[in-house]
């Protein structure tokens, strides 16, 4: 038993990896980043057990997460540019031989490179801010779900940290599923609402479908590379990368090329891409801080992270990156069209999230992991800001989210910061010039035009950018500005999202149907919107400032590094395993503006493999252009113009001349489009399509199985039971119950036996 416990040792250095560069041990305090949320989780659990009714869990959580953020900052400051590994304890260690690939190792070890640190910076930073926001936002649930919320919140940060920092795919998978669980728990936070429970379930199951792809990808990775640790994988993949560089994709086994596709399926699930995106809009049933943190800023970017992390493998396939790009572009377009037709502002934000995630994937697929990462970071800030502003509105207007019932709330006292935050977020999202969103989006779209064969995607994205600007400012023009009008939401009738001033006599056991608790809110004119308090305002202001200042990232640069277009974030990515930028983009960055891009990258000696099927016929294809101009240079103007057009259209249709909350000029235009807006409003009936094409067939199959089990399988068993019964019934009459019959039978039996003996002894 002692040796059973003595395994609490640090992960062993793999002896079979002699050819690898020695492991650089990272700072051990990095483990604390994992530990701090766990401490917060334990604290919240204790609070839940002792039914603490104060805000202690929130502030403890904020403290823990802030500590984690500080540690990440420290990591950032101390980073060396090469990946380091910090060993935790052994989780999986299974060995069946001495050779390569005969050892399954997955430890709680952290792989710290600049990509990890980049992700952890905004994850922990945003988590801290949003926890602070939630401390006020969730105050209505003090004593009921408050501790639960923050426990799950901590668990989420822990899982996300595992996902991002793990040094192997299995630890990533742990975090992957862990964030899925937290997402499930937090979407279903208002568990009395059937729609919330349904949404939570949907999110978990949709994610599971992607997870199966990821799991298969992990299996395939192990089988082919003999390890699931990033370091070993990248090492083992080296020969294939060489082959890919030479354009010899036929030397790379099909199964190796399959790995990125499978991983991408996992990423599509987590990051809500076609065909697995339908869970994310429904996930807005959760409390708004959750939507902001998990379903906008961090968790949904896990898919992007996965692709970026495994970028070397994605480069091995001819099909994986085009697949990712097309899926991303189509998702971006589809979600934007749906978003234009929605009335629930949170849902609009959700679809915009799906759309923006599509941008990121398109960026990854368009050979711009740098641009994708840049967009992830900027998007994290402004989308969190937008969600939190929406949340503040929802909080203040008793759950009202319908943009037809809210108007001009900037005119209300105490809503200035919310309005400001909304404006900042909308500007960023719509790519208004010189906002951070503008830079990152430009970088993405520019790369698409640069990369040969990706131009259609660039056009789609450009078009979508216009749609984005339109639907973003549709919200802004209807809700924030215009004539003042508001109606309270239906949460007046429910206790689950309690307001500070209305909940003094709040009954813990109030049920959903209990609607006699809050007379003071009343209806219509009696309703007083409740302006956000200091915590929400602080966070909104901070995020607004951060979102605005994020554009500075474009101009900051890492010391001692060649400058790359896009600033510090792309430079961080370039330091990591995801280091790949379209050779054309790099070329542009060095050449500055001008009419470049017509020269082959080989001229500059940069790595120049183009892992797309499109480029296969000519591996040294020339960089694409945007109508003959250098995409990156032109894109500033083009996308700025597209953004302006979108905003202008929104301005005309939704602001000019609008006198009521419910109607705008746009409504008059709708009939011209025929049934299309209705279809868009119904999300193009994708949910229904899934329901009838997958759900119902499966349910029918399940029922058939159940019947089959009951009738056929159990029937066969019963038949086996029935055979002896039948035989018994058949010979039953022989048992007359009369003594003589038995005696006669006995005598006859004896006679027969004797006769047999007689025959046998007759020689």
């Amino acid at each position, binding site marked *: 038993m002692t040796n059973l416990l003595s395994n609490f040792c640090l992960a062993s250095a793999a002896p079979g990896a002699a050819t690898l560069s020695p492991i650089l041990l990272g700072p051990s305090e990095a483990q604390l980043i994992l530990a701090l949320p766990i401490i917060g989780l334990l604290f919240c659990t204790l609070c839940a057990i002792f039914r603490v009714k104060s805000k202690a869990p929130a502030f403890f959580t904020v403290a823990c997460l802030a500590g984690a953020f500080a540690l990440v900052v420290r990591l950032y400051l101390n980073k060396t540019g090469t990946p380091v590994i910090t060993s935790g304890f052994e989780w999986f260690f299974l060995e069946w031989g001495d050779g390569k690939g005969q050892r399954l190792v997955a430890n709680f070890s952290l792989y710290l490179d600049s990509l990890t640190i980049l992700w952890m910076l905004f994850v922990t930073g945003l988590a801290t801010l949003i926890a602070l926001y939630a401390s006020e936002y969730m105050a209505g649930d003090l004593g009921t779900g408050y501790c639960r919320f923050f426990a799950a919140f901590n668990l989420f940060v822990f899982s996300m940290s595992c996902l991002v920092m793990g040094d192997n795919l299995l630890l990533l998978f742990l975090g992957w599923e862990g964030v899925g669980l937290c997402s499930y728990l937090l979407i279903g936070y208002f568990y009395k609402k059937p729609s919330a429970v349904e949404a939570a379930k949907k999110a978990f199951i949709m994610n599971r479908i992607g997870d199966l792809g990821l799991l298969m990808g992990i299996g395939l990775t192990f089988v082919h590379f003999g390890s699931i640790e990033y370091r070993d994988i990248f090492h083992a993949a080296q020969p294939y990368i060489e082959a890919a560089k030479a354009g010899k994709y036929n030397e790379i086994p099909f199964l190796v090329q399959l790995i990125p596709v499978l991983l991408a399926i996992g990423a599509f699930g987590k990051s809500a891409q076609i065909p697995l995106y339908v869970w994310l809009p429904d996930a807005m049933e959760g409390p708004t801080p959750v939507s902001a943190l998990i379903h906008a800023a961090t968790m949904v970017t896990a898919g992007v992270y996965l692709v970026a992390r495994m970028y070397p493998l994605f480069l091995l396939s001819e099909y994986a990156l085009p697949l990712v790009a097309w899926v991303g572009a189509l998702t971006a377009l589809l979600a934007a069209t749906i978003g234009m037709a929605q009335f629930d502002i949170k849902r609009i934000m959700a679809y915009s999230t799906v759309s923006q995630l599509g941008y990121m994937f398109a960026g990854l697929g368009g050979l711009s992991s740098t641009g994708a990462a840049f967009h992830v970071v900027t998007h994290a800030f402004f989308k969190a800001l937008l969600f939190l502003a929406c949340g503040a509105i929802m909080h203040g207007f008793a759950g009202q989210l319908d943009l037809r019932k809210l108007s001009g709330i900037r005119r209300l006292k105490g809503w200035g910061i919310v309005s400001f935050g909304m404006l900042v977020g909308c500007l960023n999202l719509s790519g208004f010039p010189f906002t951070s969103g503008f830079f990152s989006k430009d970088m993405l779209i520019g790369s698409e035009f640069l990369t040969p064969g990706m131009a259609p995607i660039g056009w789609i994205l450009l078009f979508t950018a216009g749609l984005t600007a339109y639907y973003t400012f549709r919200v802004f023009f209807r809700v924030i500005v215009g004539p003042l009008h508001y109606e309270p939401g239906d949460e007046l009738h429910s206790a689950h999202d309690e307001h500070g001033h209305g909940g003094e006599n709040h009954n813990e056991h109030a049920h959903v149907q209990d609607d006699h608790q809050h007379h003071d809110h009343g209806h219509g004119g009696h309703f007083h919107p409740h302006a956000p308090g200091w915590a929400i305002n602080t966070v909104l202001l901070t995020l607004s400032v951060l979102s605005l200042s994020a554009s500075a990232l474009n101009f900051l640069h890492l010391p001692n590094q060649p400058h790359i277009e896009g600033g510090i974030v792309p430079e961080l990515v370039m330091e990591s395993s995801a280091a790949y930028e379209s050779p054309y983009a790099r070329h542009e960055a060095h050449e500055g503006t001008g009419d470049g891009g017509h020269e082959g990258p080989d001229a500059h000696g940069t790595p120049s493999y183009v892992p797309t099927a499109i480029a296969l016929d000519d591996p040294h294809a020339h960089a694409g252009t945007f109508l003959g101009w250098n995409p990156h240079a032109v894109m500033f103007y083009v996308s700025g113009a597209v953004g302006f057009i979108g905003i202008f259209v929104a301005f005309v249709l939704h602001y000019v001349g609008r006198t009521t909350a419910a109607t705008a000029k746009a409504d008059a235009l709708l009939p011209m489009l025929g049934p299309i807006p209705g279809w868009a409003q119904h999300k193009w009936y994708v949910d229904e399509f899934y329901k009838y094409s997958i759900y119902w067939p499966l349910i029918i199959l399940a029922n058939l199985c159940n019947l089959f089990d009951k009738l056929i399988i159990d029937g066969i068993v019963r038949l086996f039971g029935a055979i002896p019964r039948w035989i018994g019934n058949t010979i039953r009459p022989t048992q007359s119950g009369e003594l*003589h019959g038995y005696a006669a039978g006995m*005598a006859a039996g*004896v*006679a027969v036996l*004797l006769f047999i*003996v*007689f025959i046998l002894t007759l020689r």
Partner: protein
Amino acid sequence: MDQIINPLALYAACGLGAVGVCLALPRKDGKNPQIVGALIASLAGAIVLLAMGLKAGGLLGFGNSPSVYFYIFGAVALGASLRVITHPRPVYAALYFVLSILATAGLFLILSAEFMAFALVIVYAGAILITYLFVIMLATQAPTEELENALADYDTQAREPIVATAAGFILLAVLTTLLFRGTVDLPSMKSSGGEALMAEMPRRIETALSNANKLPSGAHVVINDRNQANVDFAARKVEIRTASGETSLVDLPADLHVTNVEMVGFNLLRDHPGSIEIAGVILLMAMLGAVVLSRRQVQIDEDAKERRAQNLAAELAQGVETNP
């Protein structure tokens, strides 16, 4: 093969016996020629016995008493048995059964199984059959005045006599075919090895010796550490120790034999002591069971009640008819 009786003759006899027994069985209408049947059955039995006697060559040797008694007892036993199964009145059947037991006991005596013979008579004829008689008397409807000799249906009417008789005699035929594969003489009692038991009984030897005045005064039969006397069976000598302590061999008395009772006793108590205990327990349990059963109060059946009422009504009607 050395058959004691020609199989064909045996089967013929069996068939004959079957016919006889079948006829001898009681029939309700009384038309059954019971006497004829009994005679036929006896004839069949006699044929077989005769044939066997002829083959053995002992039937004619009347001087040989065991064989004579064997035939007498055998005939009585079979005849009585036949009556047991054919007599319509249970009491008579039981009495014939006693007769059959007595005849069997006689056969046992011929087989030198005296103990069994007497045990059979005492236990069976004396105890068990008396119980039967009691029960027969208990469990018989009280006869009415007119129908003093009336018999119950189930006594007068045999059940499927032909089939049953055929089955029984087929069984007998098969059985005897197997048994009569050859003649085997019975060995003498002397070869029984029972004499070896003599050593087990030093006191008896001592008594017999002193009765025959072969034992010097003060002398004892030597008892070895197995608690046995040292007997030399071949020379019929036993070791004794005189008062002075010397040991010597003396002849056993000529009439000193191990009796059948002793042999059975040794066999039972030395070889099967556990079985004896178990048999005792069985008897005890049977006694308890009988007590428990007979103490039980039973309600008369609805059917039986109805039947009784009908009988009463019939009797009453008869009574009305006869005694106006």
